[in-house]
């Protein structure tokens, strides 16, 4: 996983509530056995017209937001399915950070596993950041995970919370399977105990 330290980038505002994972990437694009190449299907129904051409009104089809690395989203972003194709599509497009009032649990988790930083901030703060985002290229946001702050174009620093374990994994780009496997003796001991107590459970 690519580490996430500090990101300086253009933000795009997509403030609709309840953007679900089918909106992020419809199921018919999940027929792949790879993680890459999904960026072209990102937000497919909103981004393209029925004839397949880009909808010029959609924010990510406009310059400079075509190159956005940060999304300012609405509440309950990523609700619905567990498909990790949603963060894969965002990442493939170039999005590394999503700021929203709330996220669906599985999506939030999936972002962290892919080096995308999801940041929860109150609605009014997201509204202000969305206003910044609408200014465009001269309004880059700074997202500093080390210091846990978002810096607005006017210099105002907005602190955010993140679980310390997730923060460390993101900062260092850790392989959490290797972290868990460092405890393999504990897992083996646990299995022996469960096997004695609940033989029907884990054989």
């Amino acid at each position, binding site marked *: 996983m690519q580490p996430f330290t500090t990101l300086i980038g253009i933000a795009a505002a997509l403030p609709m509530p309840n953007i679900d994972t089918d909106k992020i990437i*419809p*199921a018919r694009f999940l027929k792949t056995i790879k993680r890459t190449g999904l960026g072209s299907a990102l937000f497919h129904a909103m981004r393209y017209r029925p004839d397949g051409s880009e909808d010029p009104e959609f924010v990510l089809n406009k310059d400079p937001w075509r190159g956005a690395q940060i999304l300012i989203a609405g509440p309950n972003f990523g609700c619905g399915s567990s498909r990790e194709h949603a963060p894969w599509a965002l990442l493939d497009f170039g999005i590394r950070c999503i700021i929203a009032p709330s996220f669906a*649990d599985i999506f939030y988790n999936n972002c962290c596993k892919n080096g995308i930083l999801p940041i929860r901030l109150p609605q009014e703060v997201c509204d202000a950041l969305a206003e910044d985002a609408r200014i465009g290229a001269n309004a880059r946001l700074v997202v500093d995970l080390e210091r846990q702050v978002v810096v607005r174009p006017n210099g105002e620093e907005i602190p955010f919370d993140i*679980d310390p*374990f997730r923060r460390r994994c993101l900062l260092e780009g850790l392989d959490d*399977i290797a972290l*868990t496997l460092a405890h393999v003796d504990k*897992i083996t001991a646990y*299995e022996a105990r469960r096997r004695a107590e609940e033989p029907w459970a*884990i054989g």
Partner: protein
Amino acid sequence: MAEQDRPRTLFDKIWDAHVVERLPDGTAILYIDRHLVHEVTSPQAFEGLRLAGRRPRRPDLTFAVADHNVPTSDRSAGIAEPESRLQVETLERNVAEFGITYFPLTDARQGIVHVVGPEQGLTLPGLTIVCGDSHTSTHGAFGALAFGIGTSEVEHVLATQTLLQKPAKNMLIEVNGRLGFGCTAKDVVLAIIGRIGTAGGTGHVIEYAGDVIRALDMAGRMTICNMSIEAGARAGLIAPDDTTFAWLEGRPYTPTSEAWARAVAYWRTLPSDPGASYDTRVVLHADEIAPLVTWGTSPEDVVPINGTVPDPDQEPSEARRAAKRRMLDYMGLTPGCRLQDIRIDVVFIGSCTNSRIEDLRAAAAVVKGRKVADGVRAMVVPGSGLVKQQAEREGLDRIFTAAGFEWREAGCSMCLGMNPDQLRPGQRCASTSNRNFEGRQGPGGRTHLMSPAMAAAAAITGRLADVRELVAQ
């Protein structure tokens, strides 16, 4: 009070029994007892294992089936679509390489993973169960802690048989009283989502309790737990009881003889202790629940079938007003329109929410002796090959086909429109599935969620209809 004497919820008990180790920051290494795998969210996980030179730790606790991407038409010639075929073949290669039990497309046990798990007795009370699918919450109906995970976590479970987790908050939803005529488990869960909203359960595990839940059969309990994710909760739970045990006994993977007796004795200790505390409590009464349908593109947009399409101007904020206007536009509806005047093009009876034998019986009871309305395409997609066989033994297939329904092979089908079973742009569907998102059942498709009996009523009348007007009380 000492920690071990603290009254615990069902969730607390299952959680505590599965913590392998607590890391210093409070993250737990949580043991996973059953890992269900399907073709869409697993290929990248197996590839990750291979690239890292790892192997599955417990292939014997891992079970695979293809469901999302499989055709529900005749399969004797294999899968026509190359990408879908590659995905299923990739799963078959992976399970063969790593020694994982697989229910192939040609096996009667094949079906939707959340129908197959319980049917085979893989789902048992007190277990932790995961799958790369958000509707894994279904298995909570048995008092198992079951939740959906992403592909990175699928790889983590394959490699370690554990997950890194923080405990969820506890939510108790009590549904008291007795359900009225024509009301089903689907109406109960739609009513719950309508009440708490699609983010209402975020961060929580929901335990469902109360007279209504106790009185439900296992199919109904699965319908309720299935849609916990539509309320934002990763997992739903119902305390195991005699209904649970009777349903499970004698299934292929359930324990037998002495082990069964030991297991049941343990399972009886799982229900929440008196005085256990919940972070959030919600109480509904059965009297508030009517047969419901959704009108919008979020599962929280529920209205009673005898109601009208709501007016966005009544919403509290401009953001919500804008969202509801967009929904009306997408759904091709106007405020104040009577639900029962809305004509439909397609009826889909199936999905991990409502494709079990009980669901098919409920739909067939409405359909029997009647015809699907002119111009309506109606389809039944059983949840598994075994459900299909059972229905055929009971003659349900003949009731459906005589009425003009398509009787198809098992799979996820039009619930998510990944295989050829898709709505065309603008088509309107009465669906027993779980999500009415934009484009969910096909680009431009319009979905109204409802119970199997209500979907059957829609098929017969050609519009959204009140099932209570079609069947005798």
